[in-house]
């Protein structure tokens, strides 16, 4: 297989683009896709310092690498979930990455904020671990950004993540979630930091290939709690569709963003207020994170 640009030996085939690239031209393609995402959604400027939420996985470290190489000012945020060896290893990967590139890495221990690590929280909530984990991450990313004065948080969500989330929302017609499914969520409250997903144009295969070709040492092992997660089941369904029809995931997500999302956006009219307990933004009087922390406190004391 030959590179579309130079005719050399290809390192990766991109069926949805009907193309293949050698290593240098794939890296160039990847960076252009990120630049296109940043520009299209005006995600951030070169005057801002971007807080990159990193997990030690391929996506978030690939994103951090692209932003650093493109000359952006960045810092990393690692949320320590306390998931046994998985968290120890992923934290070590993030620390090594940050040190090798002379970047600041903030570390927040979820157990200190919620009252217990995710493996303890999960049986208390009687819901999948990903539920409390996702809630904690969203809350702590925003809180950490506010505390340290960052105006924007970038996450490593890729095209597959976004397509799977959209698929799940549509499967259950979660019309409250659809307006918020966007590569860039603006700050709609002084205590709500802008959140952006510069990898939304790139598939999971592409982010993995980029991380590999750039020599990024990322954690390959899956989170032990991700086994059987609904998001994985949705990804598997979409991968079958993609195999039969290359570009299916791209068309599903991009079609939604271009043509359907604006209609759902018009339907949304949510009043935001500050949580009476912690002061963070919520739609009720007490935010979901404080409710979770209170539940954990009652069950563990």
């Amino acid at each position, binding site marked *: *297989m030959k590179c579309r640009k130079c005719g050399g030996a*290809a*390192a*990766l*085939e991109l*069926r949805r683009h009907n193309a*293949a690239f050698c*290593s240098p031209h794939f890296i160039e393609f990847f960076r252009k896709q990120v630049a296109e995402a940043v520009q299209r959604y005006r995600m951030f400027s070169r005057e801002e310092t971007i807080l990159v*939420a*990193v*997990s030690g*996985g*391929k*996506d*978030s470290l690939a994103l951090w690498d692209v932003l650093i190489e493109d000359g952006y000012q960045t810092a990393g945020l690692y949320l320590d979930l306390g998931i046994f060896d998985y968290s120890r290893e992923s934290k070590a990967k993030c620390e090594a990455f940050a040190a090798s590139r002379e970047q600041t890495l903030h570390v927040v221990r979820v157990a200190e904020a919620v009252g217990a690590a995710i493996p303890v929280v999960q049986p208390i909530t009687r819901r999948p*671990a*990903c*539920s409390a*984990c*996702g809630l904690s*991450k969203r809350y702590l990313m925003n809180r950490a950004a506010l505390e340290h004065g960052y105006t924007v948080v970038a*996450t*490593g*969500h890729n095209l*597959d*993540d976004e397509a799977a989330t959209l698929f799940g929302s549509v499967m259950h017609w979660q019309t409250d979630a659809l307006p918020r499914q966007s590569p860039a969520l603006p700050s709609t409250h002084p205590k709500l930091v802008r959140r952006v997903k510069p990898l939304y144009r790139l*598939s*999971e*295969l592409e*982010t*993995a*290939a980029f991380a*590999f*070709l750039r020599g990024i040492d990322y954690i*390959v*092992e*899956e*989170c032990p*709690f*991700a086994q059987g*997660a609904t*998001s*994985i089941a949705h*990804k598997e369904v979409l*991968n*079958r569709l*993609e*195999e039969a029809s290359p570009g299916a995931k791209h068309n599903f997500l991009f079609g939604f963003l271009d043509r359907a999302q604006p209609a759902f956006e018009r339907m949304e009219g949510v009043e935001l207020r500050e949580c009476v307990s912690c002061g963070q933004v919520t739609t009720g009087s007490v935010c979901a994170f404080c409710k979770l922390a209170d539940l954990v406190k009652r069950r563990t004391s």
Partner: protein
Amino acid sequence: MKVILRNPRREVQVDGKRRVKDLLVELDILPSTVLVIRDNELLTSDAVVGGDDVLEVRPVMSGGSAP
């Protein structure tokens, strides 16, 4: 050839030469869900593998509540 699979980590021995795409069909793996690595290089689906090759088939899917 030796094929190293992940999540969970295991190894399988496969005899004879074949293209990567045919190997993945035999292993019941969708090509878009893995990187196939030999000697620290990525292989495309038309690459021929076999003999003394050591391949890593590395899954790309992550789940749960990423980032």
